[in-house]
């Protein structure tokens, strides 16, 4: 005969419902924080954005950035954007081949012990703080550049590009490696059964199969590079102009905010324009991350 069924303590049931409510709330918190970031950026930038006499086109595409000029204030960010683009592009030219190559090696060619070691190295490389990278660029790398290229100053696009490449490689390697790992072993076995060497497998089977994930890896690397602040602040110099060569000093969008925010009085136009620049940055990284996520969604669907 079944004994009378036990009942959960009312306290326990209520406590659980409360906890589950808090959990759901926490889940939504990410949306709240992203929305809050957007909100506060907009709040500080809005007065300038909607002021009469402010031209969005000139802000985005003007090359003259003189925020502190007394007589003729100009807020053209194109030079800064060009700086960001130049450094990021150089960084990707270096980081993408090396990153993908390393990912292919770790995923397909090396033995398990070496793989563990390399993965640890990647993690440690990724852990180095950006200010340390910037310091390295400012002191060591700049001297090397001056010595080997005869440039007058060692802080320039080349310096920033190399440093950013080193910072982005871990991101590219780990996401690319995940993408390659996600390709089912049955593909590899089928290829091997047909007599393919590992290189042929990689080139003809795995790279096409993993291309979504590899694209995502590159995009996330780009996102990392574009959003980097301290390292480029210290390694690329102070000149706000469109770069004409690798050895020109530049300033990126990110570094510019960091450099000028301390000087701009709160509530001033300069201050608000810096927030507007932040808004621009947010949009750029949003688009890059969204694209990367859509690409990754492609691999998970399989």
């Amino acid at each position, binding site marked *: 005969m079944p*004994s009378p*069924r*036990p009942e959960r303590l009312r306290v*326990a049931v209520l406590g659980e419902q409360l906890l589950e409510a808090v959990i759901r709330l926490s889940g939504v918190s990410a949306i709240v924080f992203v929305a809050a970031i957007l909100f506060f950026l907009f709040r500080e930038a809005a007065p300038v954005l909607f002021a009469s006499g402010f031209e969005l086109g000139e802000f985005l595409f003007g090359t003259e950035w003189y925020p502190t000029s007394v007589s003729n204030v100009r807020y053209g960010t194109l030079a800064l954007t060009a700086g960001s683009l130049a450094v990021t592009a150089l960084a990707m030219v270096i980081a993408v081949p090396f990153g993908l190559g390393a990912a292919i090696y770790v995923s397909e060619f090396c033995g398990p012990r070496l793989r563990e070691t390399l993965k640890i190295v990647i993690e440690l490389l990724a852990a180095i703080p950006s200010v340390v990278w910037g310091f390295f660029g400012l002191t060591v790398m700049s001297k090397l550049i001056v010595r080997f290229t005869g440039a007058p100053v060692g802080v320039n696009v080349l310096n920033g590009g190399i440093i950013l490449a080193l910072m982005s490689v871990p991101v590219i390697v780990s996401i690319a490696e995940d993408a390659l790992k996600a390709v089912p072993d049955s593909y590899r076995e089928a290829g091997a059964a047909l007599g393919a060497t590992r290189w042929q497998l990689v080139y003809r089977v795995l790279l096409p199969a993993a291309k979504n994930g590899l694209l995502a890896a590159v995009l996330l690397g780009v996102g990392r590079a574009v959003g980097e602040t301290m390292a480029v602040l210290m390694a690329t110099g102070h000149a706000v102009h469109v770069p004409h060569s690798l050895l020109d000093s530049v300033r990126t969008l990110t570094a510019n905010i960091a450099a000028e925010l301390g000087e701009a009085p709160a509530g001033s136009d300069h201050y608000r324009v810096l927030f507007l620049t932040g808004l621009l940055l947010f949009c750029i990284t949003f688009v890059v991350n969204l694209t990367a996520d859509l690409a990754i969604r492609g691999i998970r669907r399989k």
Partner: protein
Amino acid sequence: MRAKKIEVDALRLAYDSREVIHGISFDVHENEILGVIGPAQSGKSSLLRCLNRTIDFSASARVTGTIRVDGEDVRRTRDIFALRRKIGMVAPLPVGLPLSIYGNVAFAPRSAGLRRRADLDVIVERCLRQAALWDEVKDRLNSLGTALSGGQQQRLTIARALSHQPEVLCLDEFSIAIDPVTTMRIEDVLKELRQQVTIILVTNLTQQARRLADRTMFLLNGEIVEIDETEVLFSDKPNSQRTRDYVAGVFG
């Protein structure tokens, strides 16, 4: 005529647009063993999951029709956890929870609110005995449930299913992953349990249904081909040629 424990009426189940169960109706009598036979992908497992509402965890599943247990529509039940405790479920692959053996069997009563150690001790021993596992594990109740063999873990699952005193016990191809000796022991357990519990036995081993079931239902591609006394289904008297063919092993 025995009392009806479960009444299924015009049950339809679809995963997104793919319909898996096409409007079936049948009853399960109290304290009988109902065998459900049929080839793979006939909807047998999905049917069980509709019964204890674990189908809810499949986001793409759409259920229409009614299932009544003791007259209560399961889809309108006030307390879904009480429903799941009323219906015990044994899955095809043995699952030992990563808790101690004691913790495995005490898990359901504890979740239901039972706290006294003495009461839990009684339940743990009773259920392990009923599942024919007590003698093998009584000295190591604190060892990990996942460390048991496959056959032991399946009996542990049965003990777990019994620990919340279900009135209906559903077994979904329970013998797939275990050895014949353990299977026989569990079949003996089921024969004894019939006096207290109504049992629905889904199996693809037609001979198992023949051994155990009072009535048997042949489910093919989401439709009931035939449901009748077991001896009728397994003789040359069944109504449908398909039943005769399946039982004889012509297909499936």
